[in-house]
């Protein structure tokens, strides 16, 4: 009887511990959002990807379809070569899809937004996205804006 209750308590404890790990995996972390089961990799070259990180989101129409898997510097073209792992479910992206580095919110984190084109061919593993748009660098924008203001002010 004594051992029985003891064993039950230990069973309850281990079950609770494993349930807690399960909650951490399923409810708290991103394991359910997109596992790395299958999927395919596409590449894109950008002039500037400042702020983009490995594991940043790749989205289509605001829905996450994959993650950035690697960011490299291409010494031949002086561009950033970004590899993106797209989920296997999303294998219908046209070959003339364009990619741009966007920001969620004003100062939020960077992500890659894909804009599907109209071609009949679809992107496959290893393909490169040709149409890209770099991230907006806030300092450059402000600089341009001020310069523009100064130019218009000179005319008056």
């Amino acid at each position, binding site marked *: 009887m004594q051992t029985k209750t003891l064993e039950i308590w*230990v069973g309850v404890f281990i079950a609770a511990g494993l349930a807690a790990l399960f909650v951490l995996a399923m409810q708290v972390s991103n394991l359910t959002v997109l596992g790395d089961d299958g999927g395919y990799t596409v590449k894109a070259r950008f002039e500037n990807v400042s702020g983009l990180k490995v594991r940043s989101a790749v989205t289509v129409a605001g829905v996450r379809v994959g993650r950035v898997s690697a960011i490299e510097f291409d010494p031949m073209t002086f561009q950033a070569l970004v590899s993106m792992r797209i989920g296997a479910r999303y294998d219908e992206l046209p070959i003339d899809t364009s990619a741009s580095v966007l920001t969620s919110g004003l100062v939020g984190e960077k992500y890659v937004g894909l804009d599907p084109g109209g071609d009949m061919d679809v992107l496959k593993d290893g393909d490169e996205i040709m149409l890209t748009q770099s991230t907006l660098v806030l300092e450059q924008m402000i600089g341009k804006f001020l310069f523009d203001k100064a130019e218009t002010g000179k005319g008056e």
Partner: protein
Amino acid sequence: MQNRLAQLGRTGLRFFERLGRAHLLLLALLRGLPDLLLRPYLVVQQVYAIGVLSLLIIVVSGTFVGMVLGLQLYNTLVDFGAEASLGPVIALTLVRELGPVVTALLFAGRAGSALTAEIGLMKATEQLSGMEMMAVDPVRRVLTPRFLGGFIAMPLLAAIFSVVGIYGGYFVGVGLLGVDDGSYWSQMQAMVDFDKDVVNGVIKSLAFGWVVTWIAVFEGYDAMPTSEGVSRATTRTVVHASLAVLGLDFVLTALMFGVD
């Protein structure tokens, strides 16, 4: 001057002797592990004594740590209009750091001290020598089940602590302060990474469980067989295990998250 040097040398030698004995004991503990397959009930008893009996303090502290985190972080984040990040901040704090570390500190105080006192008293009352007289190896019969029990219990306790804390933060943040329910969970899921955060937290808690039970078992086994010796050994367990946990946590954090 010479005496001073000799004193220093003696202290150093004694330190390394203890360190050596601790590692020899660890080897003996690991060698005894296969025997436990024949007597799993010994481990079950220890998981009960170490794990189940620590549940109450772990659950209560987890809830309150989570609730305090919710309260404090909300007040800071709301100034920046970022109270939607409450969920991920609480979850990351708990899963990466506070879950394993606070659990290990409580574990050292609650279970580690009990282990040392039990083993030390067994030694002081010559129960361990009695076992040796009966050709029962006290390391295999008494120490190894406790070591394995602690090693099993610690990661489970840490996971329970983190989950309870996240729900404590949920209760305060969403229930009392009015953070949006959906953004609490969805932002959390977006920010907390399974491989990077949850798995590393579990690795941390495994390492802490290993170190704390090892120290506790060794201090008990190495205690002077007097009441004073046992009391000193118990104190040393709590102090050394807590320091080891904090130091090891920094090293592990640097290894896991430092080089990014």
